[in-house]
């Protein structure tokens, strides 16, 4: 087991290296630091001096890959590639283009993100699975037909409309909760209520459909027929046997996104002005802060790789048939 985990960790390294090279190509090769400086300083009336200053301030004044002016190993270390990527691997994200410490910002902002994303995931899971079970229980009836039609309709509506509609009717017309904002501590619940509700609601359509297919596949299997033949009622068979066996694909689907919850949801957070990592990223995109976007890309991939690892481990814990080798 330990062996396997170590091996997976080592496998994660080339993956992250690949991500790093990809972002490096995207950020520094497609456009030279000169281009970025011009973009940041405004297109017109930029002197050479201003560009040089900007590059020096942000550490972009060294060559990309190979520094032929430097001494020995500094030929490699005094380059943009080395300086910008080694820091990422050590989780030292450096300073954003606007001069703030990215690492500190991320630590501070990931908790509001989690406070929004975790309840949305948990409640959404319970709601989706119960609806899906209900539809499987009443399969072949008009109730199921209506459920399927409703799911298709719900998943055809853009999530933006759920948010705008929810904000308008619940927050603005009925004045049940504040439209947007955030507050530390227990007071946050007031602000999180609506986004969580909308997040759960907008996921119902596709979620229920997905779980329904999972359950339907399981219902046709032999062991369920045996259970029915033994005299179990349909409900008992469903909850004792089908649900437990269908939990394996459900679980793996959830575990892989678990670490990514820290990243938050981009649109939810910016619509409800929750100071999480999602809105942080959006602000960075809008102000074209390349350092932050790069850091977030790297962080996202690290979390995804952790998610993959957790998935593999959780497989062995819940499904005794799977052996790690």
């Amino acid at each position: 087991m330990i062996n396997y985990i170590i091996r997976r960790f080592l496998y994660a390294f080339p993956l992250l290296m690949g991500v790093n090279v990809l972002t490096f190509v995207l950020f520094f090769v497609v456009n030279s630091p000169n281009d970025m400086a011009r973009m940041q300083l405004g297109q017109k009336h930029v002197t050479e001096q201003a560009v040089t200053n900007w590059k020096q301030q942000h550490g972009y004044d060294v060559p990309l890959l190979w520094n032929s002016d430097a001494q020995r190993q500094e030929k490699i270390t005094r380059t943009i590639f080395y300086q910008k990527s080694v820091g990422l691997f050590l989780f030292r994200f450096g300073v954003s283009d606007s001069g703030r410490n990215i690492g500190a910002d991320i630590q501070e902002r990931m908790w509001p993100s989690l406070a929004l994303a975790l309840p949305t995931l948990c409640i959404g899971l319970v709601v989706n699975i119960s609806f899906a079970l209900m539809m499987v229980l009443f399969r072949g009836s008009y109730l199921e037909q209506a459920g399927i039609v409703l799911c298709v309709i719900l998943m055809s509506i853009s999530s933006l409309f759920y948010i705008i509609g929810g904000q308008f009717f619940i927050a603005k017309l009925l004045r049940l909760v504040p439209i947007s904002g955030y507050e530390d501590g227990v007071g946050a619940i007031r602000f999180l209520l609506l986004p969580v509700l909308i997040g759960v609601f907008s996921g119902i359509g596709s979620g229920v459909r997905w779980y329904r297919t999972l359950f339907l596949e399981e219902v046709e299997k032999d062991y369920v027929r045996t259970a029915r033949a033994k005299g179990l009622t349909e409900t008992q068979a469903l909850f004792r046997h089908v649900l437990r066996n269908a939990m394996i694909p459900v679980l793996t689907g959830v575990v892989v996104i678990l670490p990514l919850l820290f990243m938050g949801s981009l649109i939810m957070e910016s619509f409800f002005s929750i100071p999480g990592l999602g809105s942080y990223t959006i602000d960075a995109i809008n102000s074209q802060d390349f350092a932050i976007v790069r850091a977030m890309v790297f962080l996202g991939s690290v979390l995804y790789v952790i998610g993959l690892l957790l998935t593999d481990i959780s497989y062995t814990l819940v499904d005794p048939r799977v052996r790690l080798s």
Partner: protein
Amino acid sequence: MVVLWTDALIFILIFAILGLVIYLRGKEHIKRPLQKIAHSKAGMASLVVLLFFVLIGLLDSVHFKPANTKNNEIISLLDYWATPLREHGEKTYSAPFATTLYSKEIIALEDGTTQWGYPRLTFGGNYLDNPEAQQLADVLKKTGYGFAQGASLAGFFILGYLGINYNAQGKKNQAFALSSIAKSVLAVLFIIVSFSYTLIYLSAYYHVLGTDKVGEDVFYQAVKSIRTGLVLGTLTTLIMLPMAIVFGILAGYFRGWVDDLIQYVYTTLNSIPGVLLIAASILMVQVYMANHEQDFTSVIVRADMRLLFLCLILGVTNWTGLCRLLRAETLKLREVEYVQAAHALGVKQSMILLRHILPNVMHIVLISVVLDFSSLVLAEAVLSYINIGVDPTTYSWGNMINGARLEMAREPIVWWSLSAAFVFMFTLVLAANLFADAVQDAFDPRRSAE
């Protein structure tokens, strides 16, 4: 005639589909699932709606420079026919069917005095003498008139179709005893034709869906957005398909280091959160465009390039899922008897891949293409909201929502842009989802076994 990049790709796509249809015509194994789609009521009805959208999108893809224009603008066939809509701009917001602007202004009267009130629109209902009294009656009259014309037009064609059917069948009692599928298709056709005719008729007199902040007709914007949605939904798949098919099949068939390499590539791409990869790429495209302004001569060329880039980037982020599915399926297929037999008989590997593997994974490709379409259309709106979607000058539902969102706080609320985008988007995505379901039912062997 001006051919933009996306136009060219769209027409290539159309020709490719036509070629495929001709090639597959009469092939028995493809006939059965197609017949199954033809027997699905929801599938056929949604297909009619989709085809209607595609028709509008195609009309909007034929671009040319009008002969008598002073400035260097490029318009499409749709723009040409909608010239009154395009040029009848107002000053600012006006509600649907309104005759006055939405906000009060100081109006200069003829006798030199000024008055604080709602100014009349330049075009919407400008022929009415006394709008308050006449407006409702006029709108109702025009609607009834337009609907009657549209309905009779649709009815005429449907009756003509029935007549042909009658002659062909020759029997009296069967001609009008249509199957329920044909009935639903004709009903959808009737609704589409009469409804859109009414809207077009009305839009000559009023702003049917109001006007936006700069006074542009919202109906025109919503119709123009159809092309953007379709381009994103189809070209993205066109871009990702070759990558996904080639890599997926190679990885599954050859295994070994090829498999390892391809798996490494798609896991790496997959591990970057999609939105962030798109954001990073679009940022870079923006920087590139800002530094190479001379390459993009007109606004429409520039917007078109950005749309194409967006398709490209979405394609790069989206191919991994299909690639993984194809790899798994090929792993299964290569152990099947007929592939083993071909191998034993000494058939070349490229022939095996082309003749035995590729046709047998095509159902997966088809299903994932139709499934992806609706999610791509929905994704456009979200991406435009984060400012990493299409160019702000491109007509798209995402941009419409984005613009209208800022007016939610206004009292009374400006609701028409949002509702228009909602209705158009919902119709397209719902039709696409229903059609995708029908396709999946017909082509997925696991589902059709039931």
